[in-house]
């Protein structure tokens, strides 16, 4: 599965609808995530704008929409058990799916790796 990334540490799939989550790097940096607020299905997203938040024990982080489009579904399992994001950020810890109308500024895997190792 080919993934694209944002500089704010989200990943997004290239399929339709696209699935969005946060990267393992971000999950590790946040620490144990204890609360998530995700956009409801039907919410219109605009690339680069905030669409939710993640709270870890020590901090609150905003979630940014990687693309413009409409939310199709959100991962209720993650809302019930945010620790899924820590344990499997690119699998069971996915956040929501979105029908994409316009892509935002996305990074390739290589560019994202360069960003986090900088």
């Amino acid at each position, binding site marked *: 599965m080919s993934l694209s990334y944002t500089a704010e540490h989200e990943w997004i799939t290239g399929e339709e609808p696209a699935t969005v989550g946060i990267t393992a790097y971000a999950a590790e940096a946040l*620490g*144990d995530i*204890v*609360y998530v*607020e995700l956009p409801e299905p039907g919410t219109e997203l605009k690339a680069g704008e905030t669409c939710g938040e993640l*709270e870890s*024990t*020590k901090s*609150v982080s905003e979630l940014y929409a990687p693309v413009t489009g409409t939310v199709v579904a959100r991962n209720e399992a993650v809302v019930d058990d945010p*620790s899924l994001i*820590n344990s499997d950020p690119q699998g069971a810890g996915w956040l929501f799916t979105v029908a994409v109308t316009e892509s935002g500024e996305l990074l390739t895997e290589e560019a994202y790796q360069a960003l986090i190792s900088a």
Partner: protein
Amino acid sequence: MRTALYEHHLALGATLTDYAGWRMPLRYGSESAEHLAVRKAAGLFDLGHMGQFEIHGPEAAGALDFALVGRLSELVVGQARYTLLCQSDGGILDDLICYRLAEDRYLVVANAANTSVVSDALSVRLAGFRADLDRLDRSLIAIQGPSAAGILALICDAHLGGLPYYAVIPGSINGIPLWVARTGYTGEDGFELYVPAEHASAVWWALTTTGEPHGLRSAGLACRDTLRLEAGMPLYGHELTCDTTPYDAGLGRVVRLDKPADFVGRAALTAAAEAPRSRRLVGLVSAGRRVLRAGQPVVDLRTGAHLGVVTSGAVSPVLGRPIAMAYVSTVNAPLAVDVRGSLEPVELSPLPFYRRSTS
């Protein structure tokens, strides 16, 4: 600054954080797992950043009675006490643990961020007494949790079974001399080991090797904070500040207005003891899931009127719910916390939120 155990934290893969000028381990893996390890088995903490002082001399006891709000002269050798260093206006400069090591010698442990403040204040207050203050560069390692005593007994020659809570005795581990104190900041049974800095590494590894088969985990500052919050223990800079009197914080019991001699803050604290309370420190539990955090307003759920402020908050790993301590002006209203614009209803909770089983 780095503690004597800094290289170990790196080797253990700790996430490091800057705390009071020290580079300290925030967590080694999952802070929630570290928290639960302390509640169910044991955790090992590097507290080498905390300020340590020895006050010694023929008038050490009287000097501390003058400098602090407690009556330290009544401690018998080997006893420890929680006490406060207050300004002359009654505001709290720091909270301290004070151990009587000998008739004429005390160990005072200060919060890392307040080490200089405590050093300066004690130096001034001791000036009129035949007592001297030495700042110590020594390690402090805590082992905390229901398995702590069993683990420590395997390698430490001190008689732990006879050591009550808030007491200290000399002992050794693998020939390394140290002070063994039955004190801590987690709400669990546990020990704080005062270790010469050059031997900190050997003691840390001896405890790790011995304790890991019994569930011991290295534990960082993140879980130290959630543990003390569950245990309802105040933290300097949050529940305790220069603008807070001991009575505001519910710590009036540690102020000994019955001391015969004068002490710094007596007049202001006497007045504070008699004044009506304009605010009180309470425990809050949220029915929701959003984390309550320091600085968030406590409001009347119906009217939105400002009633106080959260001083510490977290999701309790044991209760699985957001908990907080807060100063409020009244408890006669349905309360909510304003979490970034959203009012989260909260209920009052007795403190501590968590009390260890004594069985």
